């Protein structure tokens, strides 16, 4: 070996110092990185640098080093050399000089290589060194560094010429080679050594025989005692790592076969049962987590979790050292440099249904973020949004369009508004559609008719004049009854039979909302140029920011039909510079050639309903058919909910919703739109059922029981058109006659018999007997009154929400409630109060823990 192997070791007594040795011994201090990295520092990680404090190059044949384990400001090293001498040395003058330790040499009788040296961790004056074999000489020597102090004159540590030999305290291992050795931490006189490539020997220096235990083992290198458990040893040879238990020393308790020869293996001092190993020519650090290290029974099979990490070192390290106290921190050395690395513990994580994300920070703590945190808000999580919408009653408001307002999303708002529009059109008979309340444009035009895939009604061509500019130029438009209905679906309302008159209410609304370009475009498409210019002028006066409305209006007023006019030429050229899609479309329409309106129809910035309406007016039957086909296909592929205009509440609409769901995950809107808009047969679709189930599941997980009940009611009522009402699942029957108590009560209420005023009287009449057999109803377990009595004083009998209560026979507080398990019960409010503080049944002899049987109810048991 030309270049000695580079080794590294943390100081056991300083948390920020370490030494490296190869040709010379260097002492470093590690510190957090500062803004200015001094040139004398070596960067060892992103956050730390190492300062070289001192070097010691006076020992040339360093074989092994151990650091004196007593906390002193300075570092004392025991250096084992190739000639077998162990030299105590320091970096410069230190406190050890006065003790006479510095520079002391421990010389064996015969010179041979020193393989291992180790300070006793408890009795710090003891030092053992392991040597190569020399005839019949002992190779394991125990020294007491203090003992001979008096005999030795002090020498400067650079002086290596000391000849006054110190006798070792004990000598063992005759004609054996000691490869590695280690002290036991809790037995100060015992050590273990790997000898002769075939044995591990435990030596007790109190015992004259000395060798107290031995085992045959090939793995004799890097022997080390588990810092957390004196019984466990590790050693290695070639590609085998063996773990030993001194109580069961005959054979290794665990052998880990590695893919490559092992360079170094060390117990992690900060974690239990964790070994780190380096392997030859491998850039990875191997961690062995020894599991279930039982030795009691033969069956208890230990194992090791292997984990491989790739710290970002450049080349294969030759050695490494765990930090004595910092968790999982290590330093590695290679000819190219040093690396300071901390192995991260595995992080496990989980995400709750209420959007808490939790993970573990080592084994110390759990960290979690929840939906209120800023970082979570930045995620735009649809589940948070859905939860908020569900709480606000989204999708369940009676007026369809109101739901859109709650969504706070333009696309959804448009959909709900369109659902409202289409329903009102169907309901007032404008569009006859018996089984589908929300027909799409394609349905209205009978595009999807299975018999004929083209129009049934042919459209007539109408040449409409530009009404208000006084010219006789006409534009070619198409009219048919179906087209008119479809136009209405798009929100473009026509007066019946008249040509131009356009419902100005719509335009006025657009103006109010500040959508001047859109109003302009729609006016122009309706051939009302003057009106469009007026709108623009009004817009220019209202909105100062977009002052170019005036200029656009000016440009519009120059409209000329002449195909070669300069106006036209310029408009074509500068059209693309307009930022507003509606204004672009306006000019595209005015400059269009030969009835090809590509630039209008493909203007994606325009709302889908406007584009479709435009197509309905200006495209011939064939072109319209083709355009609608392409557009609906495109919108379906994009999952654009505006496509509902075309598909309506149909199978295709379900596909569209599904695509929207796949993109956004918004199962809430999908299921709510389904139950509000789809016909009962379409609701039976598997896909729709899955949405509904998933959404109900979500509401369950969020404990939004009320919302879920309302959802179920809305769902059932949408099926109710042709099916009977939901079956009752529970009846209260009289214990004596078995007749249904409620049923007869309902009957009474309806016939306005003797109890007819029950619901409306302020002072409720008592109904404490079975209506059919007149036997008393059971008693409430709390108040011991017969059921049917009110459960408490009515504080405000003449209350305001009488209307809501009108339909109910009795208030919920007075209603029957009972445990499914022990069958005891009483007034709902009484029981609720009882179980707020108790988990056991109120009936004296009953031990049923009624309330704890329900998993989702939580009582504050033993919270403090």
């Amino acid at each position: 070996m030309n270049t000695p192997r580079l080794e590294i070791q943390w100081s056991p007594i300083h948390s920020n110092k370490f030494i490296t040795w190869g040709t010379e011994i260097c002492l470093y201090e590690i510190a957090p990185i500062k803004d200015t990295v001094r040139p004398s520092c070596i960067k060892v990680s992103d956050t730390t640098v190492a300062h070289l404090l001192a070097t010691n190059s006076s020992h040339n044949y360093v074989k092994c080093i151990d650091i004196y384990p007593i906390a002193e400001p300075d570092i004392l090293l025991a250096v084992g050399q190739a000639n077998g001498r162990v030299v105590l040395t320091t970096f410069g003058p230190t406190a050890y000089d006065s003790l006479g330790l510095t520079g002391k040499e421990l010389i064996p009788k015969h010179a041979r290589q020193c393989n291992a040296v180790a300070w006793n961790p408890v009795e710090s004056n003891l030092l053992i060194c392991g040597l190569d074999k020399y005839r019949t000489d002992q190779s394991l020597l125990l020294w007491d560094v203090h003992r001979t102090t008096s005999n030795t004159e002090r020498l400067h540590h650079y002086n290596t010429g000391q000849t006054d030999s110190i006798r070792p305290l004990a000598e063992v291992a005759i004609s054996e080679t000691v490869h590695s050795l280690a002290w036991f931490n809790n037995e100060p006189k015992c050590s273990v050594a790997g000898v002769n490539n075939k044995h591990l020997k435990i030596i007790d220096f109190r015992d004259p025989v000395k060798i107290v235990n031995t085992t045959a083992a090939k793995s004799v290198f890097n022997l080390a005692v588990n810092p957390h458990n004196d019984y466990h040893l590790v050693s290695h040879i070639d590609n085998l790592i063996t773990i030993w238990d001194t109580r069961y020393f005959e054979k290794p308790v665990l052998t880990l076969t590695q893919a490559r020869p092992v360079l170094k293996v060390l117990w992690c001092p900060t974690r239990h049962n964790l070994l780190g190993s380096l392997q030859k020519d491998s850039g990875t650090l191997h961690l062995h987590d020894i599991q279930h290290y039982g030795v009691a029974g033969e069956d208890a099979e230990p194992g090791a979790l292997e984990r491989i990490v790739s710290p970002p070192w450049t080349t294969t390290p030759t050695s490494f050292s765990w930090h004595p106290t910092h968790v999982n921190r290590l330093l590695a050395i290679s000819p190219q440099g040093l690396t300071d690395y901390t192995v991260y513990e595995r992080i496990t994580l989980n995400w709750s249904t209420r959007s808490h994300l939790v993970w573990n920070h080592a084994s110390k703590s759990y960290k979690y973020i929840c939906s209120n945190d800023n970082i979570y808000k930045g995620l735009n999580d649809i589940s948070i949004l859905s939860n908020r919408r569900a709480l606000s009653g989204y999708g369940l408001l009676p007026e369809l369009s109101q739901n859109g307002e709650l969504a706070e999303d333009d696309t959804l708002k448009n959909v709900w508004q369109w659902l409202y529009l289409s329903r009102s059109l169907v309901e007032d008979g404008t569009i006859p559609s018996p089984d589908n309340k929300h027909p799409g444009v394609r349905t209205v035009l009978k595009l999807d008719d299975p018999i004929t895939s083209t129009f049934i009604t042919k459209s007539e061509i109408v040449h409409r004049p530009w009404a208000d500019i006084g010219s006789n130029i006409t534009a070619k438009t198409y009219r048919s009854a179906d087209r008119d209905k479809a136009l209405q679906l798009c929100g473009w309302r026509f007066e019946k039979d008249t040509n131009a008159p356009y419902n100005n209410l719509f335009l006025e609304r657009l103006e109010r909302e500040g959508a001047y370009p859109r109003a302009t475009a729609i006016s122009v498409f309706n051939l009302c140029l003057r009106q469009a210019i007026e709108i623009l002028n009004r817009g220019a006066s209202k909105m100062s920011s977009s002052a170019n409305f005036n200029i656009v209006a000016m440009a519009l007023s120059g409209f000329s039909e002449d195909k070669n006019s300069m106006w036209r030429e310029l408009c074509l050229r500068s059209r693309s510079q307009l930022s507003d899609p509606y204004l672009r479309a306006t000019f595209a329409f005015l400059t269009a050639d030969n009835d090809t309106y590509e630039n209008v129809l493909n203007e994606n910035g325009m709302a889908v309903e406007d584009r479709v309406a435009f197509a309905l007016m200006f495209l011939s039957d064939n072109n319209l058919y083709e355009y609608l086909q392409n557009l609906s296909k495109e919108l379906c592929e994009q999952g654009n909910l505006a496509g509902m205009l075309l598909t309506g509440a149909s199978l295709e609409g379900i596909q569209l919703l599904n695509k929207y769901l796949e993109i956004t995950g918004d199962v809430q809107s999908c299921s709510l739109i389904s139950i509000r808009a789809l016909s009962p047969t379409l609701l039976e679709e598997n896909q729709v059922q899955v949405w509904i189930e998933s959404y109900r599941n979500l509401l369950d997980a969020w404990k939004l029981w009320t919302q879920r009940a309302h959802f179920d009611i809305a769902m059932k009522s949408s099926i109710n058109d042709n099916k009977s009402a939901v079956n009752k699942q529970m009846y209260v029957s009289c214990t004596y006659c078995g007749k249904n108590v409620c049923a007869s009560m309902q009957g009474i209420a309806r016939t306005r018999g003797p109890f007819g005023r029950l619901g409306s009287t302020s002072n409720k009449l008592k109904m404490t007997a079975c209506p059919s057999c007149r036997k008393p109803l059971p008693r409430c377990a709390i108040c011991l009154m017969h059921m049917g009595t009110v459960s408490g004083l009515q504080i405000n009998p003449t209350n305001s929400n009488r209307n809501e209560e009108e339909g109910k026979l009795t208030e919920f507080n007075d209603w029957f409630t009972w445990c499914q398990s022990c069958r005891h019960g009483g007034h709902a409010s009484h029981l609720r109060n009882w179980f707020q503080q108790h988990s056991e049944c109120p009936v004296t002899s009953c031990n049923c823990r009624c309330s704890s049987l329900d998993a989702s109810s939580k009582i504050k048991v033993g919270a403090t």
Partner: protein
Amino acid sequence: MFEAHSINAEHKDLIHDIAYDFYGQRMATCSSDQFVKVWDEDEHENWHLTASWKAHSGSVWKVTWAHPEFGQVLATCSFDRTAAVWEEIVGEGSGPGERGMRHWIRRTNLVDSRTSVTDVKFAPKTLGLLLATCSSDGVVRIYEAPDAMNLSQWTLQHDITCKLPCSCLAWNPSLSRLHPPMIAVGSDDASPSNGGKVFIYEYSENARRWTKTDTIASINDAVHDIAFAPNLGRSYHTLAVATKDVRIISVKPLPDSAANGQARFEISTLAQFDDHYCTVWRVCWNIMGTILASSGDDGCVRLWKDNYINNWKCVAVLKGDGTSAQSSDNATSATQNSNHTAVQPALSTTRYQRIVPTISMMAEMDKVIQAPLSMNSKKYQTSSIKGRSNKWVMPGIPSEAYFEPPPPNIAKSKNKK
């Protein structure tokens, strides 16, 4: 600076799994200290440790909650080769005004495995009370409790042999009746030559058995965790896989394929991210399957979101200690290693150069408390194992080997389609 909320873990060793119940208000954790702990959230959103017990005689790998419809039920699996089902009951002690202490009792111990049981999962509740376990000898077992009221009786329904050691499994949570019950199983076998490491099993109603219907061939490296995204009615299943990188796989059932014997699924990789350096440990979806969280060897938790059709992006990075590494905008650049070449001429002892990672979590961690080595003489129910190999790599837990060069300074490709 953002700081995550923190709960003192009180485990004495590595924490292997954290599970939330259906409502997200209870939490169960398990650890190498062989304990399982249950935490409850109070009305002020503080978490309290309400139960802690020694559940196994080895490291507890996974813990999972059953649907609350079946009661308060947990399942655990362990290195001690068993899986167990636990139920919380209210004690029978009846002092005056006694409200009854709750405690957890072991309802059953599933001892069929001969090796470490690496994962345990309850089936979606629509399938009944079913439990799937997988073990490092490559066997997936499906247990059923025929009577949901009697949790001490579980029958081994199916016994599926995978060729490779299993590390994780996931039930497909789809509610659609059109999808047969489906399980995905991952293997942490490290050798790429053994082929794909994620298997898909489906239950055939006609044959009354589970059959392997597909293998995700594109994943050859050890798999540490898999998770199906909540389906919500999408036409495809999304599977997140933790291997040497984060993979997001779409599994789309093909119509009519069962009849003509063609592939059952169209499997495609939607995204692949190697930001976690060499190993990804866990993956988990949010409730709607729109955001994926992953953790890995870089000590960070990363969140991934689909911005528009299959355009997955990193939206947040959280360090293990709960601080936010960076906001979503510069998430990409943050993982880049600094590549410093520090030459120090002043002392001229040596020339060093190195590449160091963005690591900063270490300083404050305390010494790990003494973990009990399980010296208790609990015997295992199983007989001795045939063909024990010397190396006992337990694949259950994320721990596997890659022989890879150390990561170069990482210029991440964010988003491979």
